[in-house]
Protein backbone atom coordinates (compact mmCIF):
# COMPACT_ATOMS: atom_id res chain seq x y z
CA UNK A 1 0.00 0.00 0.00
CA UNK A 2 1.29 3.46 -0.90
CA UNK A 3 0.65 6.10 1.73
CA UNK A 4 1.27 9.80 1.29
CA UNK A 5 1.51 12.10 4.31
CA UNK A 6 1.52 15.85 3.82
CA UNK A 7 3.45 17.94 6.32
CA UNK A 8 4.06 21.62 6.98
CA UNK A 9 6.94 23.41 8.67
CA UNK A 10 5.47 26.04 11.02
CA UNK A 11 6.44 28.48 13.79
CA UNK A 12 6.21 26.69 17.13
CA UNK A 13 3.33 27.25 19.52
CA UNK A 14 5.37 29.45 21.89
CA UNK A 15 5.95 32.00 19.12
CA UNK A 16 5.02 35.56 19.99
CA UNK A 17 3.77 37.09 16.78
CA UNK A 18 5.49 40.26 15.54
CA UNK A 19 4.63 41.77 12.19
CA UNK A 20 7.35 41.85 9.54
CA UNK A 21 8.24 45.05 7.70
CA UNK A 22 6.22 43.87 4.66
CA UNK A 23 3.10 44.33 6.81
CA UNK A 24 1.51 41.09 5.65
CA UNK A 25 3.43 38.34 7.41
CA UNK A 26 5.19 37.61 10.69
CA UNK A 27 8.72 38.64 11.52
CA UNK A 28 10.58 35.33 11.48
CA UNK A 29 13.66 36.52 13.35
CA UNK A 30 14.15 34.50 16.50
CA UNK A 31 11.20 32.25 15.69
CA UNK A 32 11.67 28.50 16.06
CA UNK A 33 10.01 26.34 13.45
CA UNK A 34 8.75 22.83 13.92
CA UNK A 35 6.82 20.04 12.26
CA UNK A 36 3.14 21.03 12.44
CA UNK A 37 1.73 19.13 15.47
CA UNK A 38 -1.36 17.87 13.63
CA UNK A 39 0.89 16.49 10.90
CA UNK A 40 2.72 14.36 13.48
CA UNK A 41 -0.63 12.69 14.09
CA UNK A 42 -1.02 12.19 10.33
CA UNK A 43 2.47 10.65 10.12
CA UNK A 44 1.75 8.33 13.04
CA UNK A 45 -1.44 7.12 11.38
CA UNK A 46 0.46 6.61 8.12
CA UNK A 47 3.06 4.51 9.91
CA UNK A 48 0.36 2.48 11.68
CA UNK A 49 -1.31 1.81 8.33
CA UNK A 50 1.99 0.63 6.87
CA UNK A 51 2.49 -1.68 9.86
CA UNK A 52 -0.92 -3.17 9.16
CA UNK A 53 -0.91 -3.38 5.37
CA UNK A 54 2.83 -3.21 4.53
CA UNK A 55 3.96 -0.84 1.81
CA UNK A 56 5.60 2.54 2.03
CA UNK A 57 4.99 5.96 3.55
CA UNK A 58 6.12 9.06 1.69
CA UNK A 59 6.15 12.42 3.43
CA UNK A 60 5.70 15.48 1.25
CA UNK A 61 5.98 19.17 1.95
CA UNK A 62 5.61 22.34 -0.08
CA UNK A 63 7.98 25.12 0.90
CA UNK A 64 11.58 26.25 0.97
CA UNK A 65 14.78 24.57 2.16
CA UNK A 66 13.82 25.01 5.80
CA UNK A 67 10.95 22.54 5.32
CA UNK A 68 13.57 19.80 5.00
CA UNK A 69 13.87 19.94 8.78
CA UNK A 70 10.29 18.75 9.19
CA UNK A 71 10.68 16.18 6.41
CA UNK A 72 13.78 14.92 8.23
CA UNK A 73 11.69 14.50 11.37
CA UNK A 74 9.07 12.59 9.36
CA UNK A 75 11.84 10.27 8.14
CA UNK A 76 13.13 9.92 11.70
CA UNK A 77 9.67 8.89 12.87
CA UNK A 78 9.79 6.14 10.25
CA UNK A 79 8.60 7.43 6.87
CA UNK A 80 10.34 5.69 3.97
CA UNK A 81 10.69 8.59 1.57
CA UNK A 82 10.49 12.37 1.62
CA UNK A 83 9.70 14.81 -1.16
CA UNK A 84 10.09 18.57 -1.06
CA UNK A 85 8.15 20.55 -3.64
CA UNK A 86 10.26 23.63 -3.64
CA UNK A 87 8.69 26.97 -4.43
CA UNK A 88 10.37 30.33 -4.68
CA UNK A 89 7.37 32.53 -4.04
CA UNK A 90 4.52 32.37 -1.56
CA UNK A 91 1.67 30.03 -2.29
CA UNK A 92 -1.83 30.00 -0.79
CA UNK A 93 -3.67 26.88 0.40
CA UNK A 94 -5.28 26.21 -2.97
CA UNK A 95 -1.83 26.46 -4.55
CA UNK A 96 -0.37 23.94 -2.09
CA UNK A 97 -3.32 21.65 -2.83
CA UNK A 98 -2.65 21.98 -6.57
CA UNK A 99 1.02 21.01 -6.16
CA UNK A 100 0.29 18.08 -3.86
CA UNK A 101 -2.46 16.72 -6.07
CA UNK A 102 -0.15 16.89 -9.09
CA UNK A 103 2.35 14.77 -7.20
CA UNK A 104 -0.37 12.38 -6.02
CA UNK A 105 -1.58 11.82 -9.59
CA UNK A 106 1.86 10.46 -10.36
CA UNK A 107 2.43 8.62 -7.06
CA UNK A 108 -1.07 7.07 -6.88
CA UNK A 109 -1.34 6.57 -3.10
CA UNK A 110 -4.18 4.54 -1.58
CA UNK A 111 -4.38 6.89 1.39
CA UNK A 112 -3.35 10.50 1.77
CA UNK A 113 -3.08 11.73 5.35
CA UNK A 114 -3.19 15.36 6.42
CA UNK A 115 -3.22 17.06 9.80
CA UNK A 116 -6.39 19.01 10.61
CA UNK A 117 -4.75 22.35 9.91
CA UNK A 118 -1.36 23.96 9.95
CA UNK A 119 -1.05 26.05 13.08
CA UNK A 120 0.13 29.17 11.27
CA UNK A 121 -2.75 30.10 8.98
CA UNK A 122 -5.25 27.67 10.56
CA UNK A 123 -7.05 27.32 7.25
CA UNK A 124 -7.76 23.58 7.02
CA UNK A 125 -8.17 23.91 3.27
CA UNK A 126 -5.46 21.76 1.71
CA UNK A 127 -6.76 18.28 2.58
CA UNK A 128 -10.29 18.81 1.32
CA UNK A 129 -9.07 20.65 -1.76
CA UNK A 130 -6.68 17.82 -2.67
CA UNK A 131 -9.52 15.31 -2.29
CA UNK A 132 -11.74 17.36 -4.58
CA UNK A 133 -9.02 17.87 -7.18
CA UNK A 134 -8.34 14.12 -7.26
CA UNK A 135 -12.02 13.24 -7.03
CA UNK A 136 -11.30 11.21 -3.90
CA UNK A 137 -13.33 10.47 -0.81
CA UNK A 138 -12.30 12.44 2.27
CA UNK A 139 -13.02 12.46 5.96
CA UNK A 140 -11.93 15.41 8.10
CA UNK A 141 -11.26 15.92 11.83
CA UNK A 142 -10.87 12.17 12.27
CA UNK A 143 -10.41 10.97 15.85
CA UNK A 144 -10.78 7.24 15.20
CA UNK A 145 -9.97 5.25 12.08
CA UNK A 146 -10.46 1.64 11.07
CA UNK A 147 -9.61 0.22 7.68
CA UNK A 148 -10.58 -3.33 6.73
CA UNK A 149 -10.49 -4.65 3.16
CA UNK A 150 -10.47 -1.15 1.68
CA UNK A 151 -13.54 -0.24 3.77
CA UNK A 152 -12.96 2.80 5.94
CA UNK A 153 -14.92 3.57 9.11
CA UNK A 154 -14.00 6.77 10.86
CA UNK A 155 -15.21 8.89 13.70
CA UNK A 156 -15.10 12.58 13.00
CA UNK A 157 -15.48 15.30 15.57
CA UNK A 158 -18.47 17.60 15.29
CA UNK A 159 -19.84 20.19 17.70
CA UNK A 160 -21.13 18.32 20.72
CA UNK A 161 -20.45 14.82 19.44
CA UNK A 162 -19.15 12.57 16.69
CA UNK A 163 -20.19 11.36 13.29
CA UNK A 164 -19.48 7.81 12.19
CA UNK A 165 -18.47 8.00 8.55
CA UNK A 166 -18.01 5.23 6.02
CA UNK A 167 -16.16 5.26 2.73
CA UNK A 168 -13.78 3.17 0.63
CA UNK A 169 -10.13 3.56 -0.28
CA UNK A 170 -8.55 5.41 -1.94
CA UNK A 171 -9.28 8.29 0.41
CA UNK A 172 -7.98 11.43 2.05
CA UNK A 173 -7.94 11.26 5.84
CA UNK A 174 -7.55 14.48 7.81
CA UNK A 175 -6.35 13.83 11.35
CA UNK A 176 -7.49 15.55 14.52
CA UNK A 177 -5.82 15.41 17.92
CA UNK A 178 -6.94 12.27 19.72
CA UNK A 179 -6.57 9.93 16.74
CA UNK A 180 -3.31 8.56 18.13
CA UNK A 181 -0.25 9.51 20.14
CA UNK A 182 2.59 10.27 17.75
CA UNK A 183 5.75 8.28 18.44
CA UNK A 184 9.03 9.99 19.29
CA UNK A 185 11.76 9.35 16.75
CA UNK A 186 14.16 6.69 18.08
CA UNK A 187 17.89 7.32 18.10
CA UNK A 188 18.23 4.80 15.30
CA UNK A 189 15.43 6.54 13.43
CA UNK A 190 17.22 9.87 13.72
CA UNK A 191 20.50 8.36 12.50
CA UNK A 192 18.79 6.57 9.60
CA UNK A 193 16.93 9.73 8.63
CA UNK A 194 20.23 11.52 8.09
CA UNK A 195 21.14 9.01 5.42
CA UNK A 196 17.77 8.93 3.66
CA UNK A 197 17.64 11.29 0.69
CA UNK A 198 15.02 14.04 0.40
CA UNK A 199 13.87 14.28 -3.18
CA UNK A 200 13.68 17.92 -4.24
CA UNK A 201 11.58 19.14 -7.10
CA UNK A 202 11.49 22.77 -8.10
CA UNK A 203 7.94 23.78 -8.97
CA UNK A 204 6.18 27.02 -9.88
CA UNK A 205 3.83 28.41 -7.27
CA UNK A 206 0.28 28.52 -8.69
CA UNK A 207 -1.50 31.88 -8.86
CA UNK A 208 -2.97 33.00 -5.56
CA UNK A 209 -6.73 33.09 -5.01
CA UNK A 210 -6.39 34.84 -1.67
CA UNK A 211 -4.55 38.13 -1.28
CA UNK A 212 -3.39 39.15 2.19
CA UNK A 213 -3.73 42.93 2.40
CA UNK A 214 -2.37 43.37 5.88
CA UNK A 215 -1.50 41.57 9.07
CA UNK A 216 -1.95 43.09 12.48
CA UNK A 217 -1.82 42.20 16.14
CA UNK A 218 -5.24 42.09 17.79
CA UNK A 219 -5.84 45.13 20.02
CA UNK A 220 -4.52 44.51 23.52
CA UNK A 221 -7.14 44.16 26.21
CA UNK A 222 -7.02 46.97 28.75
CA UNK A 223 -5.72 45.73 32.09
CA UNK A 224 -8.50 44.24 34.13
CA UNK A 225 -9.38 44.54 37.77
CA UNK A 226 -8.08 42.29 40.48
CA UNK A 227 -11.08 42.17 42.75
CA UNK A 228 -9.73 40.13 45.60
CA UNK A 229 -7.62 37.26 46.80
CA UNK A 230 -10.17 34.88 48.32
CA UNK A 231 -13.81 33.81 48.34
CA UNK A 232 -14.90 37.12 49.86
CA UNK A 233 -14.46 38.62 46.36
CA UNK A 234 -17.18 36.39 44.91
CA UNK A 235 -20.21 38.68 45.53
CA UNK A 236 -18.32 41.56 43.88
CA UNK A 237 -17.44 39.33 40.90
CA UNK A 238 -21.08 38.32 40.40
CA UNK A 239 -22.15 41.96 40.63
CA UNK A 240 -19.58 43.05 38.04
CA UNK A 241 -20.47 40.23 35.66
CA UNK A 242 -24.12 41.16 35.91
CA UNK A 243 -24.06 44.95 36.03
CA UNK A 244 -20.82 46.03 34.33
CA UNK A 245 -19.96 43.28 31.83
CA UNK A 246 -23.63 42.25 31.44
CA UNK A 247 -22.69 38.68 30.65
CA UNK A 248 -24.90 36.91 33.17
Amino acid at each position, binding site marked *: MKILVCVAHVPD*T*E*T*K*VKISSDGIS*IDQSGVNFMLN*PYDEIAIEEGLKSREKFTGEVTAISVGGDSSKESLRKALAMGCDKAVLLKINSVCD*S*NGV*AELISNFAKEYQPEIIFFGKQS*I*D*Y*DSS*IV*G*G*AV*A*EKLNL*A*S*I*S*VVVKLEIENLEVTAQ*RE*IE*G*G*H*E*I*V*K*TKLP*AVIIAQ*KGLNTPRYPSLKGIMDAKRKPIEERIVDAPAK*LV*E*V*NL*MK*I*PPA*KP*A*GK*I*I*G*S*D*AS*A*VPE*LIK*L*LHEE*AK*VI
Partner: protein
Amino acid sequence: MKYIAFVEQRSGQIKKNGFEVVRASSNLAKETNSEVIAVIIGKNISSLASELGGFGANKVIVIDDARLENYSTTAFASIINQVVKKENGNILFLSATAMGRDLAPRLSVKLNAGLAVDCTSLKNENGKIIATRPVYAGKGLIEVSLTTSVQIFSLRPNVFNAGDSSNEQATIENFTPELNDEDFKVQVVAVETSSGKKDVAESSIIVSGGRGLRESGNFGLVEKLAEVLGAAVGASRAVVDAGWRPHEEQVGQTGKTVSPTLYIAVGISGAVQHLAGMSSSKCIVAINKDKEAPIFSIANYGITGDAFEILPALTSQLKIFFGKS
Protein backbone atom coordinates in the same frame (compact mmCIF):
# COMPACT_ATOMS: atom_id res chain seq x y z
CA MET B 1 -24.86 40.49 -6.90
CA LYS B 2 -26.21 37.25 -5.57
CA TYR B 3 -25.16 35.95 -2.18
CA ILE B 4 -25.71 32.31 -1.35
CA ALA B 5 -25.88 31.46 2.36
CA PHE B 6 -25.58 27.81 3.33
CA VAL B 7 -27.63 27.17 6.46
CA GLU B 8 -26.64 24.25 8.63
CA GLN B 9 -29.35 22.19 10.27
CA ARG B 10 -28.98 19.14 12.43
CA SER B 11 -31.81 16.86 13.57
CA GLY B 12 -34.40 19.10 11.98
CA GLN B 13 -33.27 22.28 13.72
CA ILE B 14 -31.43 25.20 12.24
CA LYS B 15 -28.16 25.73 14.05
CA LYS B 16 -27.58 29.15 15.61
CA ASN B 17 -24.64 29.58 13.23
CA GLY B 18 -27.07 29.15 10.32
CA PHE B 19 -29.00 32.25 11.38
CA GLU B 20 -25.71 34.08 11.89
CA VAL B 21 -24.63 33.34 8.32
CA VAL B 22 -27.93 34.55 6.87
CA ARG B 23 -27.88 37.74 8.94
CA ALA B 24 -24.24 38.51 8.14
CA SER B 25 -24.90 38.01 4.39
CA SER B 26 -28.00 40.14 4.61
CA ASN B 27 -26.16 42.99 6.38
CA LEU B 28 -23.57 43.08 3.59
CA ALA B 29 -26.25 42.64 0.93
CA LYS B 30 -27.93 45.85 2.07
CA GLU B 31 -24.74 47.78 1.34
CA THR B 32 -24.10 46.16 -2.01
CA ASN B 33 -27.71 45.93 -3.09
CA SER B 34 -27.48 42.17 -3.35
CA GLU B 35 -29.95 39.34 -3.06
CA VAL B 36 -29.56 36.72 -0.30
CA ILE B 37 -30.45 33.18 -1.22
CA ALA B 38 -30.36 30.74 1.69
CA VAL B 39 -29.82 27.04 1.05
CA ILE B 40 -30.93 24.32 3.44
CA ILE B 41 -30.33 20.60 2.97
CA GLY B 42 -31.74 17.56 4.77
CA LYS B 43 -34.64 15.18 5.20
CA ASN B 44 -38.07 16.49 6.23
CA ILE B 45 -36.71 19.98 6.71
CA SER B 46 -39.02 21.98 4.40
CA SER B 47 -40.78 23.56 7.36
CA LEU B 48 -37.52 25.20 8.48
CA ALA B 49 -37.37 27.39 5.37
CA SER B 50 -39.95 29.84 6.68
CA GLU B 51 -37.67 30.75 9.62
CA LEU B 52 -35.03 32.32 7.39
CA GLY B 53 -36.85 35.32 5.88
CA GLY B 54 -36.88 36.92 9.31
CA PHE B 55 -33.09 36.91 9.36
CA GLY B 56 -32.75 38.56 5.98
CA ALA B 57 -33.00 35.85 3.32
CA ASN B 58 -34.86 36.97 0.17
CA LYS B 59 -35.21 33.45 -1.12
CA VAL B 60 -34.76 30.02 0.44
CA ILE B 61 -33.84 27.01 -1.66
CA VAL B 62 -34.81 23.75 0.02
CA ILE B 63 -33.28 20.41 -0.86
CA ASP B 64 -35.37 17.85 0.98
CA ASP B 65 -34.42 14.27 0.22
CA ALA B 66 -34.54 11.10 2.33
CA ARG B 67 -30.97 10.29 1.30
CA LEU B 68 -29.79 13.53 2.92
CA GLU B 69 -30.82 12.74 6.48
CA ASN B 70 -27.18 12.38 7.47
CA TYR B 71 -24.30 14.49 6.24
CA SER B 72 -22.29 13.38 3.23
CA THR B 73 -19.36 15.60 2.31
CA THR B 74 -19.49 14.61 -1.35
CA ALA B 75 -23.27 14.88 -1.77
CA PHE B 76 -23.60 18.19 0.11
CA ALA B 77 -20.70 19.72 -1.82
CA SER B 78 -22.27 18.59 -5.09
CA ILE B 79 -25.64 20.11 -4.15
CA ILE B 80 -24.28 23.48 -3.04
CA ASN B 81 -22.16 23.62 -6.19
CA GLN B 82 -25.28 23.02 -8.29
CA VAL B 83 -27.22 25.71 -6.43
CA VAL B 84 -24.47 28.33 -6.77
CA LYS B 85 -24.16 27.62 -10.50
CA LYS B 86 -27.91 27.52 -11.14
CA GLU B 87 -28.42 30.84 -9.34
CA ASN B 88 -25.27 32.43 -10.80
CA GLY B 89 -24.22 33.13 -7.23
CA ASN B 90 -21.26 35.48 -6.78
CA ILE B 91 -20.47 34.88 -3.15
CA LEU B 92 -21.04 31.87 -0.95
CA PHE B 93 -21.17 32.23 2.81
CA LEU B 94 -21.11 29.35 5.24
CA SER B 95 -20.22 28.77 8.85
CA ALA B 96 -16.75 27.62 9.92
CA THR B 97 -18.18 24.64 11.79
CA ALA B 98 -17.09 21.02 11.39
CA MET B 99 -19.51 20.82 8.44
CA GLY B 100 -18.65 24.18 6.91
CA ARG B 101 -14.92 23.63 7.23
CA ASP B 102 -15.34 20.25 5.58
CA LEU B 103 -17.38 21.59 2.65
CA ALA B 104 -15.60 24.86 1.91
CA PRO B 105 -12.36 23.48 0.37
CA ARG B 106 -14.29 21.15 -1.92
CA LEU B 107 -16.52 24.02 -3.06
CA SER B 108 -13.49 26.22 -3.54
CA VAL B 109 -12.18 23.71 -6.08
CA LYS B 110 -15.56 23.01 -7.72
CA LEU B 111 -16.33 26.71 -8.15
CA ASN B 112 -12.75 27.79 -8.79
CA ALA B 113 -13.35 30.24 -5.98
CA GLY B 114 -10.97 31.84 -3.51
CA LEU B 115 -11.77 30.90 0.07
CA ALA B 116 -11.30 32.85 3.29
CA VAL B 117 -12.04 30.63 6.27
CA ASP B 118 -13.08 31.40 9.82
CA CYS B 119 -13.69 35.10 9.23
CA THR B 120 -14.48 37.25 12.24
CA SER B 121 -15.53 40.36 10.35
CA LEU B 122 -16.56 41.29 6.84
CA LYS B 123 -16.74 44.68 5.22
CA ASN B 124 -17.61 46.04 1.83
CA GLU B 125 -15.10 48.32 0.14
CA ASN B 126 -16.40 49.60 -3.19
CA GLY B 127 -18.19 46.35 -3.86
CA LYS B 128 -15.24 44.20 -2.82
CA ILE B 129 -15.49 42.16 0.35
CA ILE B 130 -12.62 42.48 2.79
CA ALA B 131 -12.53 39.78 5.44
CA THR B 132 -10.63 39.75 8.71
CA ARG B 133 -9.56 36.41 10.05
CA PRO B 134 -7.38 35.26 12.93
CA VAL B 135 -4.09 33.49 12.20
CA TYR B 136 -1.70 31.79 14.60
CA ALA B 137 -4.78 30.91 16.65
CA GLY B 138 -5.58 34.56 17.18
CA LYS B 139 -2.10 35.88 17.91
CA GLY B 140 -2.43 37.77 14.64
CA LEU B 141 -5.21 39.00 12.37
CA ILE B 142 -5.07 39.25 8.60
CA GLU B 143 -7.23 41.20 6.22
CA VAL B 144 -7.77 39.33 3.00
CA SER B 145 -9.56 39.81 -0.28
CA LEU B 146 -10.18 37.21 -2.92
CA THR B 147 -9.01 37.47 -6.50
CA THR B 148 -11.63 35.20 -8.08
CA SER B 149 -15.01 36.03 -9.57
CA VAL B 150 -16.82 33.53 -7.33
CA GLN B 151 -15.79 33.88 -3.69
CA ILE B 152 -16.33 31.88 -0.52
CA PHE B 153 -16.24 33.11 3.06
CA SER B 154 -16.73 30.90 6.09
CA LEU B 155 -17.71 32.71 9.26
CA ARG B 156 -16.58 31.83 12.74
CA PRO B 157 -19.57 30.69 14.81
CA ASN B 158 -20.64 32.88 17.76
CA VAL B 159 -19.01 36.03 16.37
CA PHE B 160 -21.64 37.44 13.99
CA ASN B 161 -24.83 38.46 15.71
CA ALA B 162 -27.93 36.80 14.25
CA GLY B 163 -30.19 39.41 15.89
CA ASP B 164 -33.92 38.93 16.35
CA SER B 165 -36.21 37.57 13.70
CA SER B 166 -38.43 40.06 11.90
CA ASN B 167 -41.74 39.37 10.19
CA GLU B 168 -40.18 39.38 6.72
CA GLN B 169 -40.94 36.35 4.59
CA ALA B 170 -38.70 34.84 1.92
CA THR B 171 -39.76 33.15 -1.29
CA ILE B 172 -39.39 29.42 -0.83
CA GLU B 173 -38.32 27.17 -3.67
CA ASN B 174 -37.75 23.41 -3.74
CA PHE B 175 -34.83 22.15 -5.75
CA THR B 176 -34.07 18.62 -6.90
CA PRO B 177 -30.35 18.32 -7.56
CA GLU B 178 -28.77 15.66 -9.73
CA LEU B 179 -27.25 13.07 -7.44
CA ASN B 180 -25.80 9.69 -8.30
CA ASP B 181 -24.28 6.91 -6.18
CA GLU B 182 -20.82 8.38 -6.62
CA ASP B 183 -22.00 11.52 -4.80
CA PHE B 184 -22.64 9.43 -1.70
CA LYS B 185 -19.23 7.77 -1.62
CA VAL B 186 -18.57 9.35 1.76
CA GLN B 187 -21.51 8.90 4.08
CA VAL B 188 -22.25 9.57 7.72
CA VAL B 189 -24.02 6.47 9.03
CA ALA B 190 -24.59 7.54 12.62
CA VAL B 191 -24.28 10.57 14.85
CA GLU B 192 -23.27 10.21 18.48
CA THR B 193 -24.03 13.23 20.62
CA SER B 194 -22.41 13.68 23.97
CA SER B 195 -25.66 13.96 25.88
CA GLY B 196 -26.15 17.15 27.80
CA LYS B 197 -22.56 18.19 27.25
CA LYS B 198 -21.98 21.58 25.69
CA ASP B 199 -19.22 22.04 23.17
CA VAL B 200 -16.60 24.74 23.77
CA ALA B 201 -16.80 25.80 20.13
CA GLU B 202 -20.50 26.58 20.41
CA SER B 203 -21.10 27.68 23.95
CA SER B 204 -21.49 31.31 24.92
CA ILE B 205 -20.02 30.62 28.36
CA ILE B 206 -16.96 28.44 29.02
CA VAL B 207 -15.40 27.43 32.34
CA SER B 208 -11.88 26.08 31.75
CA GLY B 209 -9.54 24.36 34.14
CA GLY B 210 -5.79 23.86 34.15
CA ARG B 211 -2.91 22.41 36.13
CA GLY B 212 -3.80 24.55 39.11
CA LEU B 213 -6.58 22.05 39.86
CA ARG B 214 -3.82 19.61 40.80
CA GLU B 215 -5.61 16.41 39.77
CA SER B 216 -8.30 15.26 37.38
CA GLY B 217 -10.78 14.46 40.16
CA ASN B 218 -10.90 18.12 41.12
CA PHE B 219 -12.43 19.00 37.75
CA GLY B 220 -15.74 18.27 39.44
CA LEU B 221 -15.54 21.82 40.83
CA VAL B 222 -15.26 23.19 37.29
CA GLU B 223 -18.10 20.98 36.09
CA LYS B 224 -20.39 22.15 38.88
CA LEU B 225 -19.74 25.80 38.11
CA ALA B 226 -20.26 25.12 34.40
CA GLU B 227 -23.58 23.44 35.17
CA VAL B 228 -24.91 26.44 37.09
CA LEU B 229 -23.89 28.76 34.26
CA GLY B 230 -25.11 26.46 31.47
CA ALA B 231 -21.52 26.56 30.26
CA ALA B 232 -19.20 24.22 28.40
CA VAL B 233 -16.18 22.78 30.20
CA GLY B 234 -12.83 23.66 28.66
CA ALA B 235 -9.30 22.60 29.45
CA SER B 236 -5.71 23.70 28.99
CA ARG B 237 -3.29 21.70 26.85
CA ALA B 238 -1.38 20.61 29.96
CA VAL B 239 -4.35 18.79 31.46
CA VAL B 240 -5.42 17.29 28.13
CA ASP B 241 -1.89 16.00 27.53
CA ALA B 242 -1.90 14.62 31.08
CA GLY B 243 -5.02 12.66 30.18
CA TRP B 244 -7.28 14.41 32.72
CA ARG B 245 -9.67 15.69 30.07
CA PRO B 246 -10.67 14.67 26.52
CA HIS B 247 -8.94 16.52 23.69
CA GLU B 248 -12.23 17.97 22.39
CA GLU B 249 -12.29 20.23 25.45
CA GLN B 250 -8.86 21.71 24.75
CA VAL B 251 -8.78 25.46 24.19
CA GLY B 252 -5.72 26.96 22.51
CA GLN B 253 -3.52 26.83 19.47
CA THR B 254 -3.56 23.05 19.18
CA GLY B 255 -7.12 22.86 20.44
CA LYS B 256 -10.12 25.03 19.77
CA THR B 257 -10.14 28.76 19.29
CA VAL B 258 -13.15 30.19 21.06
CA SER B 259 -14.89 33.56 21.41
CA PRO B 260 -17.56 33.12 24.09
CA THR B 261 -19.30 35.95 25.91
CA LEU B 262 -17.81 34.81 29.20
CA TYR B 263 -14.65 32.76 29.70
CA ILE B 264 -13.70 31.70 33.23
CA ALA B 265 -10.14 30.37 33.53
CA VAL B 266 -9.48 28.42 36.70
CA GLY B 267 -5.95 27.40 37.62
CA ILE B 268 -4.71 28.24 34.14
CA SER B 269 -1.51 30.27 34.08
CA GLY B 270 -2.03 31.39 30.49
CA ALA B 271 0.68 30.00 28.20
CA VAL B 272 0.95 31.85 24.89
CA GLN B 273 -0.71 28.99 23.11
CA HIS B 274 -3.71 29.00 25.48
CA LEU B 275 -4.18 32.77 25.39
CA ALA B 276 -4.17 32.63 21.60
CA GLY B 277 -7.21 30.39 21.67
CA MET B 278 -9.40 32.43 24.01
CA SER B 279 -8.22 36.04 24.17
CA SER B 280 -11.03 37.19 21.86
CA SER B 281 -13.60 36.19 24.50
CA LYS B 282 -15.80 39.16 25.38
CA CYS B 283 -15.30 38.93 29.13
CA ILE B 284 -12.53 36.94 30.80
CA VAL B 285 -12.42 35.99 34.47
CA ALA B 286 -9.22 34.51 35.87
CA ILE B 287 -8.95 32.63 39.14
CA ASN B 288 -5.38 31.72 39.98
CA LYS B 289 -3.18 31.66 43.06
CA ASP B 290 -0.18 33.00 41.17
CA LYS B 291 -0.46 36.78 40.98
CA GLU B 292 2.13 36.85 38.21
CA ALA B 293 0.24 34.42 35.96
CA PRO B 294 0.03 35.81 32.39
CA ILE B 295 -3.71 35.06 32.32
CA PHE B 296 -4.29 38.17 34.50
CA SER B 297 -2.85 40.40 31.76
CA ILE B 298 -5.86 39.69 29.56
CA ALA B 299 -8.52 39.06 32.20
CA ASN B 300 -11.25 41.63 32.76
CA TYR B 301 -11.70 40.43 36.33
CA GLY B 302 -9.26 38.48 38.42
CA ILE B 303 -9.23 36.81 41.79
CA THR B 304 -5.72 35.92 42.95
CA GLY B 305 -6.64 33.14 45.29
CA ASP B 306 -7.25 29.49 45.94
CA ALA B 307 -9.60 27.90 43.39
CA PHE B 308 -10.62 25.21 45.88
CA GLU B 309 -12.09 27.88 48.11
CA ILE B 310 -13.37 30.29 45.44
CA LEU B 311 -15.10 27.85 43.07
CA PRO B 312 -17.56 26.36 45.58
CA ALA B 313 -18.43 29.88 46.80
CA LEU B 314 -18.94 31.13 43.24
CA THR B 315 -21.06 28.10 42.35
CA SER B 316 -23.34 28.35 45.36
CA GLN B 317 -23.73 32.14 45.14
CA LEU B 318 -24.51 31.97 41.42
CA LYS B 319 -27.20 29.39 42.20
CA ILE B 320 -28.81 31.92 44.52
CA PHE B 321 -28.29 34.71 41.97
CA PHE B 322 -30.01 32.76 39.18
CA GLY B 323 -32.72 31.57 41.55
CA LYS B 324 -33.67 35.18 42.28
CA SER B 325 -33.44 36.66 38.78
